[in-house]
């Protein structure tokens, strides 16, 4: 009875549904991939952790304001919705100097220093970071820039030998500690270099211990704070920088910016795909309405000779299930092919390695869309047939 029902509207609705669903699945899949490198340990861009500090101004230099974060400032940061973690840097409240351990291969030197500590969860280098009173040495992490300055600036101008990272890490250092009227020396060792944190870091446990013995009793407000922000919160971060007159390393801002842009772009793609989907859904509903109005005489007559609304609706819906089932399967297949042959190849060529998140969620999304299509068509068809039945 519903033969000869192929027409342009059907072709357009089918094509629209196919394109829309495929695009939706692709963007959804890509979005998942991007999420996966947001959340995995070894990330492309690193976590959304940035070090913030207040800008040093002319007033600061003459002592009119300072760059410390007061407890109120910290509380304010914690209350921000887009900041998920706040950790102030802790500083040593004693004097620190380092010199070589004779015989370990370093030239003779002595330098005044400072120590800071951050919670372990913010460490961006994977090193053995444990320390207790019986430890052989104090682990130290230096900024990677530090060795650059030594080797390509300081060493050349002073005529001393350059030091490799390996040598620096192999050699022990003598740590001179002076505070609270007591002096001592301990052994330290450079265990790693941080890309992100421009400070000289020691384990929190050591700093607690040493501050307990050698502290001069000053209350030191932190001048640098570690914060972790949510994804896509570049805008809020920038606002906060203006508000508190903050300094943030440009590199970490760029990362936040790139992440935000990527997410927004994929989001827009996803929204566009969703719109195409909805349009084609409307197309299908229209198509089924058209089909129904073309066969309204037949439907009315079927109801007049005793066919139930349900059985007529089912006849329609089974057709819809077949048509849209084919569309859904095609979409999934196309998405997989595009993923393997285009997206992955393109990512490889551009040197981006993503942890692929698998097709499972996309397939589930496809099935949900299938359900949505069938459901909405079912409701629309049933309403119309019921109306036809009532008017018979």
């Amino acid at each position, binding site marked *: *009875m519903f*033969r000869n029902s192929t027409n342009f509207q059907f072709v357009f609705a089918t094509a629209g549904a196919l394109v829309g669903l495929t695009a939706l699945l692709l963007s959804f899949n890509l979005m998942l991939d991007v999420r996966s490198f947001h959340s995995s340990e070894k990330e492309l861009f690193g976590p959304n952790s940035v070090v913030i500090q207040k800008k040093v101004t002319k007033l600061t230099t003459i002592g009119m304001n300072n760059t410390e974060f007061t407890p109120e400032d910290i509380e304010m940061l914690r209350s921000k919705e887009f900041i998920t973690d706040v950790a102030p840097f802790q500083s040593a409240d004693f004097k620190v100097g380092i010199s070589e351990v004779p015989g370990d291969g370093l030239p003779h030197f002595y330098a005044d220093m400072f120590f800071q500590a951050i919670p372990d969860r913010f460490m961006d280098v994977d090193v053995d970071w444990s320390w207790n009173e019986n430890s052989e040495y104090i682990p130290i992490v230096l900024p990677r820039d530090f060795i650059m300055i030594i080797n390509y600036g300081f060493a050349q101008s002073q005529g001393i030998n350059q030091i490799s990272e390996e040598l620096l890490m192999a050699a022990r250092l003598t740590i001179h500690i002076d505070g609270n009227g007591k002096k001592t020396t301990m052994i330290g060792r450079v265990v790693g270099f941080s890309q992100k944190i421009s400070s000289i870091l020691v384990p929190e446990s050591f700093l607690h211990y040493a501050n307990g013995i050698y502290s001069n009793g000053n209350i030191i407000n932190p001048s640098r704070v570690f914060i972790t922000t949510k994804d896509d919160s570049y805008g809020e971060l920038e606002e906060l920088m203006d508000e508190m007159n903050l300094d943030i390393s440009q590199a970490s801002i760029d990362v936040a910016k790139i992440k935000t842009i990527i997410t927004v772009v994929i989001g827009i793609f996803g929204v566009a795909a969703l719109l195409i989907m909805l349009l084609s859904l409307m197309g299908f509903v229209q198509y089924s309405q058209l089909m129904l109005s073309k066969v309204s005489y*037949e439907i009315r*007559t*079927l*109801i*007049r*000779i*005793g*066919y*139930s*609304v349900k059985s007529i609706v089912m006849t329609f819906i089974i057709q819809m299930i077949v048509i849209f089932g084919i569309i859904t399967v095609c979409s999934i297949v196309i998405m997989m092919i595009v993923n393997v042959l285009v997206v992955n190849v393109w990512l490889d060529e551009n040197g981006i390695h993503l942890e692929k998140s698998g097709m499972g969620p996309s397939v589930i999304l496809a099935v949900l869309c299938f359900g949505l299509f069938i459901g909405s068509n079912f409701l629309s068809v049933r309403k119309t047939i*019921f109306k036809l*039945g*009532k008017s*018979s």
Partner: protein
Amino acid sequence: MKLEFKSVLPFPLQDYHHAEESVWKKGFALNFPSRVMLNASSGKGKSTFVNTVYGVRFDYDGTVLLDDKDIRQFSLHDWIELRKKSISVVFQDLQLFGELTAWENLQIKNKLTAHKTDDEIMLMLEKLGIPDKKNQTCKTLSLGQQQRVAIIRSLLQPYELLLLDEPFSHLDEQNSAIALDLISTETTKNNGGFILTSLGSKHGFEFDAELKL
């Protein structure tokens, strides 16, 4: 089954003058099984009568009762059940599926009710003289042939009441008598009754009652 009209007057017929004995005025109550003739000239509302009883149109004043229940209260589902099991019809405009063959038209009904075997349906076609039209699409059949298909279709279900709206208008007297004989036989088998509307001819049949419009 009891069919009762109480002061029923369709909107389109309100301005006409109706005779004293017209069912539109005085109403009636009939108990089925019985064979009833509804006699009236054109334009008096025969089709309106059939369509009203069949629950197809509701544009009337008054009350139609089926087994003492107001048919306005029936849901679509109730009507569909009635049309499957209790009330059958031959519409004046037949309402066949023109794109389908005569056989398919009959099968569409019989599939729903499983009332007759294929052989029995074939026998009916033979009795009404159109076995050779079985595989012809209905739109290519003559009106008389279409009428016979519609009559057979109306017999492919159990019924207590069969409504026949001028079913013989394109049949000659002889074929009308054969068709009426078939209808009567089936009605007896179903232990049901029918209302046959006609322009006046009784087709040589003895009716239990006669209504006038």
